[in-house]
């Protein structure tokens, strides 16, 4: 029997009797990161990186959870579980599972570049690699993040000169903080949607700190919006909450924005290509660095990326899961969480 199997409830290690990022309730779940499609409600016990736990509690309520450090391990039934940085969002981890010398790594979501906020990705050697493939096509190649932030700063400045608000849509956990951390906050005031403010509070409880911002409430005077940068989750787009911010320009920050079709479908003024997932080159680098004998490809362009790896002489196969990658970022996921104000 394989050390990890792909079951209806999720990735299962029967020897250690635990699941990794399961999508149905189970007794013991090891969680790669706190995004809703990986960290779901209803598990009896959660194990994850300690910096994920305040956010998971914020999103899932009172859960029984144990937090560990990167590189630290837990042994269950002779199976060794340890976490390594995935570079995706604060607290995100790859899960390394070892039993009698056989090593599996489940990447969860990841990116290779250092976003200045999340612990940077560390390649982990293994026999079996389970990798995501959200952007597993050669058309997805990110430009350096510095260029993207330069574009954002310029966009904000230009809008500010016209006395307009700049509403920037980005996922409330990870993307929003990355923007907050890297944007030039000397340009003007930065205001936040409630969902992002709340994520920030949870992350601050986990030991992160952010530049000064202001939460938008129903008492925020309208004049405040003009010229400021307002960071909001994608679900705010077109909502009554957003109408109050007029007049504004709206931008979306997501890897999907590299395709014209996706940009036009979102109907935003501006798309910034900024992703917390690995692009085509990073995916290939990660697979190579793992030196895995066998690669399982999950959420994304699973069939295509597997076939490409096979062409390169890597034994790979697609696996069906219920993860959604970055789809929820542009409001196209099915499992979109309610982003409360």
């Amino acid at each position, binding site marked *: 029997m394989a050390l990890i199997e792909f079951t209806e409830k999720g990735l299962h290690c029967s020897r250690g009797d635990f699941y990794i990022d399961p999508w149905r309730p189970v007794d013991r779940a090891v969680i790669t990161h706190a995004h809703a499609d990986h960290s779901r409600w209803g598990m009896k016990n959660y194990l994850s990186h300690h910096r994920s736990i305040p956010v998971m509690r914020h999103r899932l309520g009172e859960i029984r959870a144990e937090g560990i450090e990167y590189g630290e391990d837990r042994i269950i039934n002779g199976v060794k579980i340890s976490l390594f940085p995935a570079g995706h969002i604060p607290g995100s981890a790859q899960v390394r599972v070892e039993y009698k010398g056989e090593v599996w790594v489940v990447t969860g979501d990841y990116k290779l570049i250092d976003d200045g906020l999340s612990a940077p990705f560390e390649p982990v050697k293994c026999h079996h690699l389970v990798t995501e493939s959200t952007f597993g*096509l*050669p*058309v*997805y*190649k990110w*430009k350096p993040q510095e260029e993207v932030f330069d574009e954002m700063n310029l966009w904000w400045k230009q809008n500010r000169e016209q006395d307009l608000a700049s509403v920037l849509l980005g996922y409330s956990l990870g993307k929003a903080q990355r923007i907050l951390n890297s944007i030039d906050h000397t340009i003007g005031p930065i205001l936040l949607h409630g969902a992002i403010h709340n994520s920030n509070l949870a992350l601050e409880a986990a030991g992160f700190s952010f530049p000064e911002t202001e939460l938008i409430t129903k008492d925020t005077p309208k004049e405040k919006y003009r010229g400021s940068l307002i960071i909001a989750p994608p679900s705010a787009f077109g909502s009554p909450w957003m109408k109050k911010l007029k007049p504004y320009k709206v931008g979306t920050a997501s890897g*999907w924005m*590299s*395709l*014209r*079709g*996706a*940009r*036009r*479908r979102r*109907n935003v*003024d*501006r*798309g910034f290509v900024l992703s917390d997932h690995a692009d085509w080159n990073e995916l290939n680098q990660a697979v190579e660095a793992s030196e895995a004998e066998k690669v399982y490809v999950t959420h994304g*362009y699973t*069939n*295509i990326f597997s*076939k*490409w790896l096979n*062409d390169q002489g890597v034994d790979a196969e697609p696996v069906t899961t219920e993860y959604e990658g970055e789809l929820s970022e542009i409001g*196209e996921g*099915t499992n979109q969480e309610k982003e409360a104000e």
Partner: protein
Amino acid sequence: MKDFGELILALDATTKTNDKVTAMVSFLDSSDDADKLWFVALLSGKRPKRPVKTSLLREWSAEVSGIPLWLLEESYHVVGDLAETVALILPDTSETSEITLDERMQDLLNLRSLEEEEVKAYIISAWAEMNKTERFVFNKLITGGFRIGVSQKLIVRALSRHLEEEENLIAHRLMGDWKPSETTFQKLLVEPDDNENLSRPYPFYLAYPLEEEAENLGDVKDWQIEYKWDGIRGQLILRNGEIFVWSRGEELVTERFPELEKLKDFLPSDCVIDGEIMAFKDGAPLTFNHLQTRIGRKKVSKKILEESPVVMIAYDLLEKDGKDLRETSMENRREMLEEVVKKAKADTLLISEKIEPQSWKEAAEIREKSREVLSEGLMLKRKDSTYKVGRKRGDWWKWKVDPMSIDAVMIYAMRGHGRRANLYSDYTFAVWKGDELVPFAKAYSGLTDKEMQSVDQFVKKNTIERFGPVRSVKPELVFEIGFEGIAPSTRHKSGIALRFPRILRRRLDKKPEEANTLEDLKGILDVYNT
């Protein structure tokens, strides 16, 4: 070329028409005439013949990028646009080039006379000195079809602002069969032309669908009411003894319709008639299927001429004795038109009969029955209306009869293009024949973005098989499919061809086994296809 690339980027980056016009005007103000002419030509779809086969672009770009061709194809299915796919997969570069749009276009025109190896070398070195946006634009110049949300209307508006001329005048000057290689910006748009282009048609006046109650339009007597025919809208132009037939797609189609060409000997010079080209035999219209055998065929055989003869049903008179009548009232134009048609006494020029109901209620009853005479409904034109340019609200309305409809099951889905790229948005529908589902129509429009996303999710989770970009899915979703016409067909497995099939709504209340049958479809066919 850089400026043009930046213009395309700017047009692409905004959804606001005002911003688009501003971007175009600023490009026009800062470009020379040669580049301006190409701008007009390219954005209005007048692209020179494709200088390189797209299959070669695929091959070369895959080679340069170090990926197999199948992976490029898969990427293309996701991106939904070949020019964009190629631009995205090519390796990054830091080179730049100062070549102008005109120079680039001249190069492309010259490629046609080069050997394949020389063409390849040119294209690859051109890619190497461009950023992603320039590459995209360059590839588009080759593959054609600049669909960047800029309508002819907006181009006209930008030119009108740039040249400080009236929009109508600009629109008229842009009509017709001009080629960027045979004219100049000055000749086309600036120098007054008296007699230079005999064949030039007027921009068509188009109607919006009527969305409110007809009763709200005021007294029925103020309206000229006619049947709306389902043919090809066309313009018949007779000037200096020469005749020209234009289709609404701004295509000169004179040779394809000898029945109309012969009208040269019947009509007074100079006149311009707006009408509908219709397949018509023994005093009655034929289905659109007949007309279809005439479209796209330059030389028509005797047999086809006999089976599917055409006539023009005249709607309007735009010019008489060389005088532009568009500012004259509909009522007066109609009188003059009746006289012209009557005097011509030609069997291939008919007048669109006026329907003169006494009330809107009576008009509605006639509309309900319009399918019986193979018409699509009614046209309502205010009697005092002038002939406007393009689609305008207020004076003209099309009041179409509700489409026929049938409930069908979705069995295949394909990723869309453009705005719908990377989204399963194009579907094939089937009806029951015993316990088998027979596909009978493809449709991609009619769902809201939200509905489309939910169907997209369904497709991804319920795929049975993949065939390239197409997936077969669990036959579970039921949709109501509307269509304007139905005809027998030997080319379709179902034995039926639909006209303008589209999704009317998703039937969440119906299970797949409750969808209609092929027998039901054939029943509709028997009723309407006499």
